[in-house]
């Protein structure tokens, strides 16, 4: 079984989330641990199934990742943003509706064995929106702190950059596969996704490290 280089960054993020567990809890970012677990389990299972059982289609695994990571992302941003009043109701309503729709899409629309393009585009759209919202709240808060020293900044920044890149690649996933679009003899998907994954999980790892720092910074509550 051969691991890709970006897999090591995913494992590093998982390990650091476990090591800095207390810091993550302090910053209400505990949802990152199950999220990292889901990422690593899906990636590892995908490699095992391909290497030892000859699976050529592992889309069902990534579809499971999409439906399981979506509520985790929503929960994580819920803790970060701490919505109040009307916004809280809207947030919970939208989160539940989107999660239910993703499950419906998995079982009754796009299906289990076809890559759920619609779901991933919507997931990227919502995580981008929430990241931008979180970054705005951090940047406009009245507290005195350096933005780049705040773990939320690195989590939101990683997600934002990743989403910007993947929106196109994952949205055109079927098109890229059918037309066999390649760059330097590699599928476009396989060439771009690892780079974006490295950016995402490096920023997560750094954010987890910042969570463990003793000085607690302003939380946008």
């Amino acid at each position, binding site marked *: 079984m051969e691991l890709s280089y970006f897999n090591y960054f995913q494992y590093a993020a998982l390990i650091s989330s476990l090591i800095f567990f207390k810091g993550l809890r302090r910053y209400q970012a505990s949802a990152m641990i199950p999220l990292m677990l889901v990422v690593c389990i899906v990636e590892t299972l995908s490699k095992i199934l391909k290497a030892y059982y000859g699976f050529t289609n592992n889309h069902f695994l990534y579809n499971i990742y999409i439906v399981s990571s979506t509520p985790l992302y929503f929960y994580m941003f819920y803790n970060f943003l701490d919505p109040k009043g009307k916004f809280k109701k809207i947030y919970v309503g939208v989160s539940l509706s989107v999660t239910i729709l993703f499950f419906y899409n998995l079982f009754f629309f796009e299906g289990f064995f076809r890559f759920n393009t619609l779901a991933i585009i919507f997931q990227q759209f919502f995580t981008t929106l929430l990241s931008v919202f979180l*970054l*705005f709240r951090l*940047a*406009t808060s009245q507290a005195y702190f350096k933005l780049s020293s705040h773990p939320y900044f690195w989590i939101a920044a990683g997600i*934002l950059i990743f989403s910007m890149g993947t929106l*196109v690649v994952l949205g055109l996933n079927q098109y890229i596969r059918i037309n066999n*679009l*390649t760059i330097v003899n590699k599928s476009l998907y396989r060439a771009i996704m690892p780079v974006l994954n490295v950016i995402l999980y490096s920023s997560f790892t750094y954010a987890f490290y910042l969570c463990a720092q003793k000085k607690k910074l302003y939380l946008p509550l």
Partner: protein
Amino acid sequence: MRSKEEIVFTIIIVIVILVFLAIMFLVALARHNQRRNTLVFENQQIKKDFEQTLLNTRLEIQEQTLNHISTEIHDNIGQVLSLARLQLNTLSTNPGEKDIDYTDNLLEKAITDLRSLSHSLNTNSIKEKGFTPSVLKLLEQFEKTGKFKTFFYDEINFDISDDQGIILFRIIQEVLNNIVKHAQATEIQIRIEEIEGKKIISIIDNGSGFDTKKIESINQGIGIKNITSRALVIGAKLSLFSQLNQGTTVRIIFKNE
């Protein structure tokens, strides 16, 4: 039909542009945060300076009050009571009405002075009475010495916050002390007026005056610097007009609101 290379190139360009925009957005936020931090830091510093000045001013007023009490007890109440005691010792077994009245008047004066002293013990008087009544009281104390005639004009019903009032009161107190020490004046005038939208407090004396150019070289310069920095803390600036034998005018000018 476009070639595959063209499509791949377009997709990559779109991704690069999107990622670049995201990075630019993050950089813009970080810069905004840096600017805001500088502003927050400056505001905190101003607040800290204001609190420090306020604390110093309160301590100085307290010290001034204690000095005043000490002087009053020693020079006034003490003297009156000693005189009353002397009077009682010299009284015969059947004192006349005149002697009793005299002693009674002495004791009444001592009681009045003590009452007045107990009022001045309250260092929060500016907060309780307000700025203008406190200034009037201060002028009354100067008038009581018999050395000065004092005048007070408030054309605008001047109002100021308690904390700023304490600092402004201390500035006026310092200026008046300087008049007593150095000016050889017989008249002191305090005017509060509004000129071209600016509130101005003028403290005018008819004393010996001085050469303002030489002020830097003598000890008085330090006092003026203290007053100037205090004025800055409450958002005002200080200006000084003086000529030899022409008296002195100190103006505290508040910035436009």
